């Protein structure tokens, strides 16, 4: 919803929050995921909850909230309570600020005393995080500290250990270290956003003394937007790709009219330097795993000539797909989405032309089309929007562009084979299919939240849940990693299920089975099934039960278990089906071309 996209009008959101919520919930065809969020506050949190709800709904997440009593974050975190225990949060968000630091260094204190105070202050928070993740296996999000709004020591406040600012900076570093060492812990960086907003306006003491809001009420939308970025990223709601216009977006001028030698790029003048910085910003996204594509109204020859300029930071090779033609851009983006095998709703379309933006935004459901403004605000708008908010930066992310490039080559090479099996064999595929391992936990959790199409039960899991399941001896877990001659696809398949004793012997229930669409029709699901069956036999299990729960998006796996040789046990009117496989019977593997482990 445009009102909730950056750059938003915070005053309007505060004033119309009820109507906005109503309109969000009236939207049709939104597949919400529901998440339980406990807000443990060190100050008033009511508006934080309301604003966060709006931004999460806008990202397809329907939150349920628990709110601690006023300033009871510590008690709730350390000891829990009946209500919170029953709530069983997916996320605990600790909303504390510099107002919650009970003791600051005094000017008479020695360095040693200050160090001790620092450790004591920090330890209290760390104890909260550990207690919460231990008790609820939840993700924890913690504010770091904003800068204080006055400086008793003036400029020395930042350098002298007795200064508040110095103390806060040291605390923030300790928080950051904990975040780096704990994959289910995230920092809501209010130190940055309060500075961006303006500390003076942020810390308005009148809202603290009147309402006990530790930040000014008018900046709560900015605060909540930043927090929502983290939550939607955790649940796989980030965008995946840029679709970029060229003329007056990647460079100044129109390459077809002005000629490649006259467009503004490079370092010759202010405008060229501005576009160069923007190109650098875009190019840096490649390393985050964001896919770069072009949607430009141009003759292809001219578009490529623009990129071929030696002082162009972006090169032809940086883009997975370049659509430079005279078709409508919505069609080009749809085509690009098809070629990359991703949804067109996972694109961010960047274009200086409001008419093109309006067209794409109307024609492509779910796509993000930021109002980028003038060239000097492109970076700011994209950056603050947080389309690609990083929660974990994995090796997979860094290689993602290469993987998609390999996929495009695969699809070209498949066209030269008459027999599909010959093609599969030519790919020289090797799979690693193993129990969940620590280095893949975040990727596995990400897949459970992102995969919609090849997903039998659409069960969403946090990383903490995945880690618990991996340790439970009654569970069997498998991830599948697939490599072929074009490259490594990374972890692409996930399965877990649990054993149950019954009168018929031990039954294995498959709770979750999913696969990334980037390896469709490669036989990977059969290779996975072979491994699951082998493990079940090893454990003396007599029967496997698999489940299919239909959603708007997973029709492609309706007959998954039939293809695997399972027998339909029951199916209800909504299409929810239960399938069984008797392990005493001979199983014929469907895998023809993948070498496993």
């Amino acid at each position, binding site marked *: 919803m445009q009102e909730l996209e950056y750059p938003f009008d915070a*005053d309007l959101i505060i*004033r119309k929050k*009820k*109507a906005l919520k109503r309109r969000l919930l009236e939207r049709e065809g939104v597949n919400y995921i529901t998440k339980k969020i406990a807000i443990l506050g060190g100050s008033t949190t009511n508006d934080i909850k309301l604003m966060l709800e709006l931004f999460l709904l806008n990202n397809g997440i329907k939150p349920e909230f628990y709110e601690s009593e006023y300033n009871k974050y510590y008690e709730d975190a350390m000891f829990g309570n009946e209500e919170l225990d029953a709530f069983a949060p997916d996320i605990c968000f600790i909303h504390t600020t510099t107002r919650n630091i009970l003791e600051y260094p005094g000017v008479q204190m020695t360095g040693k005393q200050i160090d001790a105070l620092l450790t004591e202050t920090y330890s209290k928070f760390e104890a909260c995080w550990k207690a919460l993740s231990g008790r609820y296996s939840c993700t924890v999000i913690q504010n770091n500290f904003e800068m204080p709004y006055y400086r008793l020591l003036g400029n020395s406040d930042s350098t002298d250990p007795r200064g508040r600012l110095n103390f806060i900076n040291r605390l923030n570093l300790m928080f950051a270290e904990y975040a780096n060492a704990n994959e289910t812990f995230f920092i809501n960086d209010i130190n940055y956003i309060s500075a961006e907003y303006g500390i003076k306006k942020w810390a308005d003491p*009148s809202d603290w003394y*009147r309402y006990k809001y530790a930040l000014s*009420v008018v900046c709560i939308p900015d605060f909540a937007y930043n927090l929502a970025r983290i939550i939607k990223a955790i649940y796989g709601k980030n965008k995946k790709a840029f679709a970029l216009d060229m003329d007056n977006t990647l460079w100044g001028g129109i390459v077809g009219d002005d000629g490649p030698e006259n467009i503004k790029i490079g370092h010759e003048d202010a405008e060229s330097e501005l576009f160069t910085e923007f190109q650098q910003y875009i190019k840096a996204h490649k390393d985050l795993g964001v896919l770069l594509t072009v949607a430009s109204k141009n003759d292809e020859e001219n578009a490529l000539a623009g990129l071929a300029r030696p002082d162009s930071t972006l090169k032809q090779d940086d883009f997975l797909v370049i659509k430079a033609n005279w078709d409508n851009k919505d069609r080009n983006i749809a085509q690009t989405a098809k070629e990359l095998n991703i949804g067109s709703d996972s694109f961010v379309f960047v274009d200086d032309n409001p008419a093109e933006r309006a067209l794409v935004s109307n024609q492509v459901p779910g796509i993000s089309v930021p109002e980028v403004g003038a060239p000097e605000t492109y970076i700011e708008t994209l950056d603050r929007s947080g389309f690609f908010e990083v929660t974990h930066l994995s090796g997979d992310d860094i290689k993602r562009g290469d993987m998609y490039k390999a996929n495009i080559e695969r699809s070209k090479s498949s066209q030269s084979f008459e027999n599909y099996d010959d093609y599969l064999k030519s790919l020289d595929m090797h799979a690693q299919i193993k129990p969940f391992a620590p280095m893949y936990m975040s990727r596995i959790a990400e897949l459970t939240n992102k995969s919609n199409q090849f997903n039998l039960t659409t069960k969403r899991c946090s990383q903490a849940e995945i880690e618990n399941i991996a340790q439970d001896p009654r569970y069997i877990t498998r991830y599948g990693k697939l490599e072929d001659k074009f490259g490594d696809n990374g972890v692409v398949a996930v399965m877990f299920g649990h054993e149950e004793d019954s009168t018929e012997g031990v039954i294995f229930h498959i709770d979750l089975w999913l696969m990334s669409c980037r390896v469709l029709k490669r036989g990977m699901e059969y290779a996975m099934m072979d491994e699951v069956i082998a493990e079940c036999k090893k454990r003396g299990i007599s029967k496997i039960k698999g489940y299919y729960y239909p959603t708007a998006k997973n029709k492609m796996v309706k007959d998954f278990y039939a293809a695997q040789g399972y027998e339909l046990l029951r199916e209800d009117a909504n299409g929810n089906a239960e399938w069984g496989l008797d392990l005493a019977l001979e199983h014929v593997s469907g895998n023809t071309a993948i070498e496993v482990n």
Partner: protein
Amino acid sequence: MNKQEVFDKLNEVFRDVFDDEDITVTENTTASDIEDWDSLEHINLIVAVERSFGIKFTMGETTGLKNVGEMADKILEHLG
């Protein structure tokens, strides 16, 4: 801005904040006349009023308001 204009604008703000097109505020309207007007919503209301008139109440002013009439008077004072 005269008092009537202040009331017209206040009416719009109230309708937005409480998402209720039927609200018409008068001099004597108080929190007990509007169903959702509790202490938490009051905060939003004050902020919305401040932002739409481009003023900022002092701390003392917001705690002592008896009804919408007094609010309108304070707004007029700020607008000078």
